[in-house]
């Protein structure tokens, strides 16, 4: 396999200015990923600071309702409220090892921004977070959290003012600042080695979950389900199950207002707009028009509202190892309320996509079949947005 490719997806499509920094990151990561001291440090942070391992929780009420056994991997219980912290701490440690003093990052839902700001506060790094103004509005609580954590939040007003544009702006900053600065990408996307680095640091989710579910149920799940924005929580839980060929791996994209409406972020589900293309450093499925201009996405959930998908997912889909489906904004909201009311867990709107698809899938399963859903984050950040949709005043 060519360096940095998953099949023929991936690569390093960035300007010459960024290449030296990307090569430096690659060699640092190769050196440290199996380094005993580095891992001791990271694991200590993960257990004593993040609160890992996060539990796997059985959902008795939903299981009865849908007629199969439903389990959640509780990344919502990780410090800062989502899986993003696993990667943020890992990369922040890499940055320190490279002698960088400043971290920049993009954020959509704000969870990655909060996780990065947290890692920087803990490890003594300067932190600037780029965020589209549309996302700043719909994820207000997270904007304030980042500020409380000592980070600067830089509003991005270009393009659609969402995640894609925040990434553009972060890349622009980085092309002038690589000497002092590490770009801490928040999902399994971008130029090689980022997709590999992010998957490596998120793989702890699947390692724990596989062990936990085996311990509790004495068998492997029938399917593992995760939402897919850039694809970090999904790849994080998938990786441990890749060789378990009987376990279906299912990624759920944001169907927005439906595929036909064109207002969605379903790179795989829309055969007209979703085609292999090159965006933000990698060759992967990208929503684009016939000329190759990047298509503007829509999703109720800021964390899934992105035109491209991590290259490893394009590969896993192509070889048939993982399947990808979508749910709409409406179905997502319904699942959001259902989990809150029936199991007492308020999920992130991103994670609610995984739930919504799982509930559809469950109807075709047997009562002893097991569904493992990655609950990538908690929904506190989303309450204003959900209230807006339901017409409630907060």
């Amino acid at each position: 396999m060519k360096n940095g490719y998953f099949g023929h997806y991936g690569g390093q499509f960035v300007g010459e200015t960024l290449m030296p920094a990307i090569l430096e990151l690659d060699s640092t990561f190769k050196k440290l990923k199996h380094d005993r001291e580095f891992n001791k440090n990271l694991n200590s942070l993960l257990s004593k600071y993040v609160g890992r391992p996060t539990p796997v929780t059985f959902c008795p009420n939903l299981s009865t309702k849908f007629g199969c056994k439903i389990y959640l991997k509780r990344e919502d219980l990780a410090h800062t409220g989502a899986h993003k912290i696993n990667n943020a701490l890992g990369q922040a440690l890499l940055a320190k090892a490279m002698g960088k003093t400043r971290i920049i990052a993009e954020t959509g839902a704000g969870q990655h921004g909060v996780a990065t700001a947290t890692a920087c506060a803990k490890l003594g790094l300067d932190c600037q977070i780029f965020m589209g103004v549309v996302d700043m509005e719909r994820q207000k609580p997270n904007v304030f959290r980042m500020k409380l954590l000592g980070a600067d939040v830089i509003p991005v007003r270009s393009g659609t003012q969402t995640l894609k544009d925040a990434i553009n702006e972060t890349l622009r900053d980085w092309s002038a600042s690589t000497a002092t600065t590490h770009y801490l990408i928040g999902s399994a996307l971008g130029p090689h080695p980022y997709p590999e680095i992010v998957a490596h640091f998120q793989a702890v989710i699947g390692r724990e979950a596989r062990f936990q579910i085996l311990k509790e149920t004495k068998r492997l799940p029938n399917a593992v389900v995760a939402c897919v924005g850039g694809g970090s929580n999904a790849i994080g839980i998938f990786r441990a199950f890749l060789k378990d060929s009987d376990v279906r791996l299912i990624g759920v994209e944001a169907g927005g207002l439906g595929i036909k409406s064109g207002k969605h972020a379903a790179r795989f589900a829309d055969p007209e707009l979703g085609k292999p293309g090159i965006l933000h450093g990698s060759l992967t499925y990208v929503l684009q028009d016939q000329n190759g201009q990047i298509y503007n996405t829509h999703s109720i959930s800021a964390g899934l509202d992105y035109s491209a998908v991590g290259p490893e997912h394009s590969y896993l889909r192509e070889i048939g190892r993982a399947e990808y489906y979508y749910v709409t904004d409406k179905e997502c909201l319904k699942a959001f309320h259902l989990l809150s009311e029936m199991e007492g867990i308020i999920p992130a709107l991103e994670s609610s996509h995984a739930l919504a698809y799982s509930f559809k899938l469950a109807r075709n399963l047997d009562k002893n079949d097991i569904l493992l859903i990655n609950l990538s984050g908690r929904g506190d950040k989303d309450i204003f947005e959900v209230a807006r949709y339901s017409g409630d005043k907060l």
Partner: protein
Amino acid sequence: MNYAELFHNLKRKNEIALIPFTVIGDPNYQTSLKIVKNAIHAGADILELGFPFSDPTADGPTIQAADQRALQSGITTDQCFEFLREVRSYSMIPIGLLIYANLVYRYGIEEFYAKLSDISVNSVLVADVPIEEATPFIKAARNSAIDTVFLVSPLTTNERLTQILAQARGFIYLISRLGVTGVRNDVQDLTIKLIKQIKRKTQLPIAVGFGISNPEQVETLARTEVDGVIVGSAIVKIIEENIDRPENINTEIGSFIASLKNATRGSCKIS
């Protein structure tokens, strides 16, 4: 005319090449075409033309806005080709393209270069294709007899420089400073050092770009071993500032380009 001939002729006249950059279709097809023709008359030696892209990550705010204006006017890849054809039928001036990878990839890499070859475009620089990913682009370019231009930045290591020089054709695009495109006011000592470093390793002409915005900078560079200067944001800014008075665009760009061209002349080299 090809690059080798052009740079050779200029050298004999003791001039360096003035290479204005504009985005095709900014602010719309017809105005953009007039701007390009006007630039040729005002003294451009080479045209550097950009295909507008929705997500130009190597560009600063000025050129981002130009891309947006062009796309808003509804321009397509095929119309960009048509534009190039019209420029080509108007003048034999060398044309270099600056483009982002997805536009080429989506069109089909081989097909894209073949099309450019029909129009006699001289070179292509793909902003987000470093040497590591360049193989299919270089192959297509060679099949179509088009030069592949590469960027060299102040951070490019010696090892990378050697790799780049082995593949580069036409000229080297030296980024005068880190960051994205945009207007700056001076010429860094670093740039002058880099020019010398690259010259020691190659016969290829060097054009300096990113941040060149006034005749003083051009004069400074003309006194070095550099072979050309690329001026982008400073020209595009004139379009932006006169968007409501399109009749001013060409007079202003014309006199700006003439003043830059003047600064490329009669330089006495220092080394």
